[in-house]
């Protein structure tokens, strides 16, 4: 059976369900008396089981099945969650996660869930002993109320193993329509289609047909366990309907990326068309061009909207991370999340996940003190770590705040002076300088390197990743009061106009934001000072950067190389390339450069012909 087409969907859905399971487990841990979490965990587990069985991932299905079994016992037994059981369920969720990822990657044979399975089964049998088997029996009478109205009441129970019970019920109801008039169906069609529908439904049937004929027709619909036809008028409360959710479809993110790239090209074409229509001075052409321009703009904003994703899709995995980490380190941490519904472009959201992991690990690992230390400092033993998203005009600010000990400025200053990064006589550090220092490799002051917060390269990676997305990072820290990191991010992927330049065989894009002008190197007056070339441009001197040399491309630049003059504020720089290939609208994609790469790239894009191109960061040259 070719199931590969479902593999990605399976993976995406399973991840969502696992995230739900983790969230509900945490809820349950906070309130072991609550009964809602276990029901939700059960449903998510059940769904994973069904999907995995269809995919043929036996180990995933088996683990989900047996965990579901344990959950079912807990649910029916109305047992409160013990620490051991919760720990086991967390473990099972982790194993499930690993097994799912491995199975989808074709490495199911390397998965070993034996130990977890055994533990889950042991827990199930000990719970079962306490609860007793009697509780598990399926209620034999149809529990759906008899609907009011004219006609005979028909109550149907489907066999428990019947798949897609809602669809089965619909087939039976459609067959009933051939016998007479069907009305007052309970539950509602929407509720029947819901996951929770247990296969019991009832309706009123006005028909000439005999009871026996009705029952037989219903059995002919398939998967029927039990039918009751009666002309009772007893009215009981209706079954609560389950609301229908908003209509959504799943779209592969690569489709949306491809659409974004096409929009970039469309906008480039739009500009070309506008140029032509202005040159031709043809009113008809101008009208079409204007209309085209407007439609392309509308299309762009629609697609940008379609890519917006609420931050909870990433945030939801953090409560578990913070919990595990604080337990491991023996710290008490209350983790709060705010602004979960704020939306960001999916691609941006995907990129910031790792940054947030770094920051949260730092907060729990270095920021929050041990309960003892906190008490000694007059603070409550439980520390607070807060992750929040707030809209700020066109940007979104994501903050990771802790009420821990704060970053030790004196220590950072000493280390920076030792490394010669700061004047030896500097006495203090502003937040801004502090961040700059923190984002340099080798600046870690952590006393020991741990697997908790790495080697002090975290902040470096966070700053780089955020800048690559067109955002910025701020830090505020106060001794004894805590630290706040703020990531300010654009909400949508940027489409910018860029100059496309060629150097050697490669092409590079340079956003025109910082391009002041372009000119011909042959026509410029080049001087040499301090081993550096510079050219005289009108009143000033502009240092030259030969991209060919910088990128270590062999061979000489053509004699009449173009120079791109970059300007940021008062500073200017002339970038020498081999050839200019024109301007184009490009979709800026975040990009984490491999270590050791020149710090002159801010991202990447894909040009019309599918060619990936690096985006040059003007800040790297000026």
């Amino acid at each position, binding site marked *: *059976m*070719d199931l590969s*087409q*479902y593999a990605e969907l399976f993976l995406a*859905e399973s991840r969502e369900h696992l995230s739900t399971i983790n969230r509900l487990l945490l809820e349950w841990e906070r309130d072991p008396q609550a009964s809602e979490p276990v029901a939700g965990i059960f449903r998510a587990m059940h*769904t994973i089981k*069904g*999907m995995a*069985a*269809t995919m*043929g991932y036996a180990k995933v299905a088996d683990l989900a099945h047996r965990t579901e079994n344990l959950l079912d016992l807990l649910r029916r037994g109305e047992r409160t969650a013990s620490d051991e059981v919760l720990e086991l369920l967390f473990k099972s969720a982790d194993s499930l996660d690993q097994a799912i990822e491995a199975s989808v990657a074709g490495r199911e044979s390397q998965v070993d869930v034996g130990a977890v399975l055994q533990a889950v089964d042991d827990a199930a049998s000990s719970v079962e002993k306490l609860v007793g088997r009697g509780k598990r029996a399926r209620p034999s009478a149809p529990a759906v109320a008899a609907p009011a109205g004219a006609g005979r009441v028909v109550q149907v129970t489907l066999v428990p193993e019947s*798949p*897609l019970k*809602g*669809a089965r019920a*619909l*087939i039976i109801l*459609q067959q009933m329509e051939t016998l007479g008039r069907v009305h007052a169906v309970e539950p509602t*069609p929407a509720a029947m*289609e819901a996951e929770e529908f247990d296969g019991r439904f009832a309706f009123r049937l006005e028909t000439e047909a005999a009871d026996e004929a009705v029952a037989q027709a219903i059995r*002919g*619909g*398939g998967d029927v366990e039990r039918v009751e036809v009666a002309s009772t008028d007893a009215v009981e409360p209706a079954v609560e309907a389950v609301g229908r959710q908003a209509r959504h479809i799943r779209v592969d993110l690569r489709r949306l990326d491809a659409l974004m790239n096409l929009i970039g090209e469309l906008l480039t074409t739009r500009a070309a068309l506008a140029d032509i229509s202005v040159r031709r001075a043809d009113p008809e052409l101008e009208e079409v061009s204007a209309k085209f321009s407007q439609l392309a703009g509308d299309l762009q904003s629609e697609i940008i909207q379609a890519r917006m994703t609420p931050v909870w899709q990433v945030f939801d995995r953090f409560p578990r991370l913070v919990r595990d980490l604080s337990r491991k380190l023996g710290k008490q941490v209350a983790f709060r999340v705010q602004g979960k519904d704020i939306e960001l472009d999916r691609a941006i959201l995907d990129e910031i996940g790792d940054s947030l992991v770094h920051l949260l690990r730092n907060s729990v690992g270095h920021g929050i003190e041990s309960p003892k230390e906190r008490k000694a400092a007059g603070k409550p033993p439980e520390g607070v770590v807060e992750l929040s998203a707030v809209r700020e005009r066109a940007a979104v600010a994501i903050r990771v705040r802790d009420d821990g000990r704060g970053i030790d400025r004196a220590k950072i200053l000493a280390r920076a002076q030792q490394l010669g990064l700061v004047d030896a006589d500097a006495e203090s550090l502003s937040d801004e300088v502090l961040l700059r220092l923190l984002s340099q490799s080798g600046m870690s002051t952590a006393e020991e390197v741990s697997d908790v917060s790495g080697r002090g390269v975290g902040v470096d990676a966070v700053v780089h990743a955020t800048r690559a997305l067109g955002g910025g990072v701020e830090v505020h820290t106060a001794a004894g009061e805590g630290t706040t990191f703020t990531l300010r991010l654009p909400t949508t992927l940027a489409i910018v106009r860029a100059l496309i330049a060629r150097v050697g065989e490669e092409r590079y894009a340079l956003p025109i934001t910082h391009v002041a002008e372009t000119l011909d190197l042959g026509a410029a007056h080049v001087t040499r000072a301090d081993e550096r070339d510079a050219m005289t441009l009108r009143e000033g001197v502009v240092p030259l950067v030969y991209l060919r040399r910088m990128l270590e491309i062999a061979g000489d630049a053509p004699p009449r190389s173009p120079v791109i003059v970059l300007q940021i504020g008062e500073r200017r720089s002339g970038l020498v390339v081999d050839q200019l290939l024109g301007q184009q609208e490009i979709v800026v994609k975040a990009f984490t450069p491999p270590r050791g790469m020149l710090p002159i790239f801010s991202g990447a894009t894909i040009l019309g012909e599918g060619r990936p191109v690096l985006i040059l960061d003007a800040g790297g040259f000026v």
Partner: protein
Amino acid sequence: MSHTVLVCDDAIFMRTMISDILTQAGYEVVGEAESGTQAVEKYAQLKPDLVTMDIVMPDMGGIDAVREIVKADPSARILMCSAMGQQALVVEAIQAGAKDFVVKPFQPSRVLEAVQRVLG
């Protein structure tokens, strides 16, 4: 005379599997289609007693194919082949005129039960 069947699924593996189950039970598989468009064309051409229809297929999906086939022949008997978790689509297919469904992974006995219900 045995009943004739048209098997529609974009996966060769699935078509082979369904054909095998049906042939072994004495049905005559008269044609196969790998897309909704092909299913509609072949239905018109072969007039089979039964169609097994996958839901997710390239070009025209199974549900649209059901609509087209039922429009041309309201007495068409179509059995949907669904994966788990496609309940909403199965419901849509039934509303479009499909008579019954089976859920993957297939158990031959359940496929044959459904076929008998539809042809019954």
